[in-house]
């Protein structure tokens, strides 16, 4: 029940959600809803673990995970961009496909140990009281990368030319099209980016924050939480990062609550009957719903963030979009 430990763990596991949610933000900002995050994440986690297992290099594992999940998501791109299929159904198929592929190809990986992504302290910064041990001590490189990646993503989307084009394509593809921006190509690119980041999120799990391959339990629904986080974050990478960290910390808190005999001076019911922890385990899912309620209300109120063309196929000459 040490707040530093909870925060430390939250930053580590939150990094998974951070990568996955920001990836989805990129895809959705371009107008493509990809509900296949869970499948791509699991596929990425498997690919990373399996590659690290066979090559001994965790970095190759990360790279392979990103490419594998990225190319898997290209399938979603093809079906929704060129075939104009329903993005919801296609995303669901991607979940099935990714999960199936991961389970089939991941046979026999359970229980193996592999080379992991190294962790280290950041000099000087780790000496800061409270903040240091939580933020800058004994974290994987990927966690530190997350600190930088979220603000960079925000800057990219709002302050750069490609970011401006990305926003335009998600808001009004027809306008971008008339100005010679390649709507289809750009969408494919960001669908790939979204997939690659989901793969990175998977690799972060299997090679860093909770190392190992535990079949479908490896991701255990975090891909879906990432999708929800995007709405809650109103398509803003900074808010997505914050939300990811909060969820991560919450998961750790739940674990820690089961330990002590006394809680705030009262007898800890979880100590007496550990089965009560099932209710505690529900909290992330319940909180996701609650967060979504608030997120949706904010979106409805001031149409904050939601890209107007999200979920709609673009066909030149059709729809005024």
């Amino acid at each position, binding site marked *: 029940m040490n707040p530093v430990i909870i925060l430390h763990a939250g930053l580590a596991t939150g990094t998974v959600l951070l990568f996955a949610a920001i990836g989805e933000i990129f895809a959705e900002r371009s107008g493509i809803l990809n509900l296949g995050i869970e499948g791509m994440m699991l596929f990425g986690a498997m690919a990373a673990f399996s590659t690290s297992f066979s090559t001994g290099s965790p970095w190759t594992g990360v790279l392979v995970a990103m490419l594998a999940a990225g190319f898997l998501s290209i399938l979603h791109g093809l079906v929704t961009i060129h075939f104009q299929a329903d993005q919801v159904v296609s995303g669901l198929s991607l979940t099935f496909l990714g999960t199936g592929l991961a389970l089939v190809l991941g046979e026999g990986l359970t229980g193996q140990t592999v080379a992991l992504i190294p962790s280290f302290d950041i000099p000087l910064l780790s000496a800061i009281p409270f903040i240091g041990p939580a933020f800058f001590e004994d974290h994987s490189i990927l966690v530190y990368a997350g600190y930088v990646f979220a603000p960079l993503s925000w800057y990219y989307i709002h302050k750069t030319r490609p970011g401006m084009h990305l*926003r*335009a394509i998600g808001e009004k593809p027809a*306008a*971008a*099209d008339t100005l*010679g*921006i390649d709507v289809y190509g750009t969408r494919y690119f960001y669908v790939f980016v979204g997939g690659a980041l989901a793969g990175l999120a998977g690799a972060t799990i299997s090679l860093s924050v909770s190392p190992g391959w535990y079949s479908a339990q490896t991701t255990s629904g975090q891909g879906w939480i990432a999708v929800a986080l995007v709405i809650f974050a109103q398509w803003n990478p900074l808010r997505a990062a914050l939300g990811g960290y909060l969820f991560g910390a919450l998961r750790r808190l739940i674990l820690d609550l089961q330990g002590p005999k006394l809680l705030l001076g009262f007898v800890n019911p979880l100590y007496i009957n550990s089965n009560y922890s099932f209710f505690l385990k529900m909290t992330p899912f319940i909180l996701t719903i609650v967060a979504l309620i608030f997120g949706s209300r904010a979106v409805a109120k001031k149409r904050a963030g939601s890209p*107007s063309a999200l979920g709609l196929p673009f066909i030149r000459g059709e729809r005024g979009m």
Partner: protein
Amino acid sequence: MTSTIPAVALKDITIRFPGVLANDKVNLTLEQGEVHALLGENGAGKSTLMNALAGLYKPVSGTMNVHGKLVDFNSPKDAIAKGIGMVHQHFMLVPTQTVTENILLGLNEPKFFMRLSEYDEKIRALQEQYGLFVDPRAKIWQLTVGEQQRVEILKTLYRGADILIMDEPTAVLAPQEIEDLMGTMRSMVNQGKSIIFISHKLHEVTAVADRVTVLRKGVVTAGGQSMDGVTKEDLAQLMVGRDVVFTVKKEPQEPGEVVLKMNDVHAMNDKLLPALQGISLNVRAGEILGIAGVGGNGQSELAEVITGLRACEGRVSISGVEISNQPPITAIQLNVSHIPEDRTAVGSAPNLSITDNTIMKSYCQDPIGNGWSIDFTRAGERARKLKDKYDILAPSVETPAGKLSGGNLQKVILAREISSEPKLIVAMQPTRGLDVGAIESIQTLLLEQREKGTAILLISEELEELLTLSDRIAVISEGMIMGTLDAEDADINKIGLMMTGVAES
């Protein structure tokens, strides 16, 4: 400023869509420094032809020359590179981005990092040159329609366009704004630009164009004719292919009791900005009240408030029954019919059959509704009758509504809305985008309803239509009624002035 080499020369352009020959061997020559009008009815193929010149479509055959050089556009980028800029009828602007961002969209500068303030200055300079002023930092959704159009023009000018295509630029503007626009067009021509001006409004063409090309059903009926001595009647004949006689005649008629009564009604639009600001009006049985105004001045909200689709403050009643802030079903049960502005997005269900579409308002009532179930045999029979009566062209009543042409779809909607024998019809732009034949039959249907004693609120942006059909005309501007005139002795200039927000003196 005419040079021997034309700015644009289109030769034998043919463009085909599945089942439609949109342009058939069309020729068009745009001389340097002229305003060339491209005239034609809706669906004549004007926009298609110009979209090809802007690089959006590829012609099946034919050649395009720009400044004497043969061109072959594969994307809008190619066209932009040759100095062609198009101002689309439906603005191609990203509402959530600023004016500057919209202008810079698709360009290769700024390189990666955007220093927007530098570009704001550049754009201000361009605004000075052509007198097109709009705040570069404003978001598009905050701008008026006229300002948005200026952004569209600036967008093409910033790209160094010397050939401008303007697709029905006046359709969204108030009379005064139209004058400004024409001034801008003149000033651009004086600075060396060449302009193709697409329109179906004859008086505008005669006012601003140097030459005119007329399209009818994808074929040129007059190519590059000089405007000297050409009358509106000549143009109309070329455009429609026969003498245009307005056969729709309205008989004088004494209106009955007040059906619709609105008192000091206020409402917000979707962006939560005030759209209706104290509307009061009456419509009586057997009377058509026309609502004139430039689009976006509260007309949609007015129709939605009456039909229960939008919340409001104030009082709205049908024959004395208060209906404000009631769900849509209340108005339907009080026999209020609604011909919505957008027949595809609101008025019909595209994948459902014609039969299904005709029972949208009556599926709960005898004889179609039958307890928990629907008598689809009866519904089908009724739909067949309506199909014959309203002359709906479709293979069968099982055809999905989405496969119908605009005019036939509108007839399905009218058949549904009129066959319920309404007390009040709220008709919003009932003839927009239809060909002359369909317009006539729909206008006739509305007048028949008037004779039967139905109260009709006709909201239209076509003044001609309002003058032909209405008994009285109320002019709306920024959600307020500027005044109400008798259609008999209405002065068009006066209506135009009121449309810009000048109240009746």
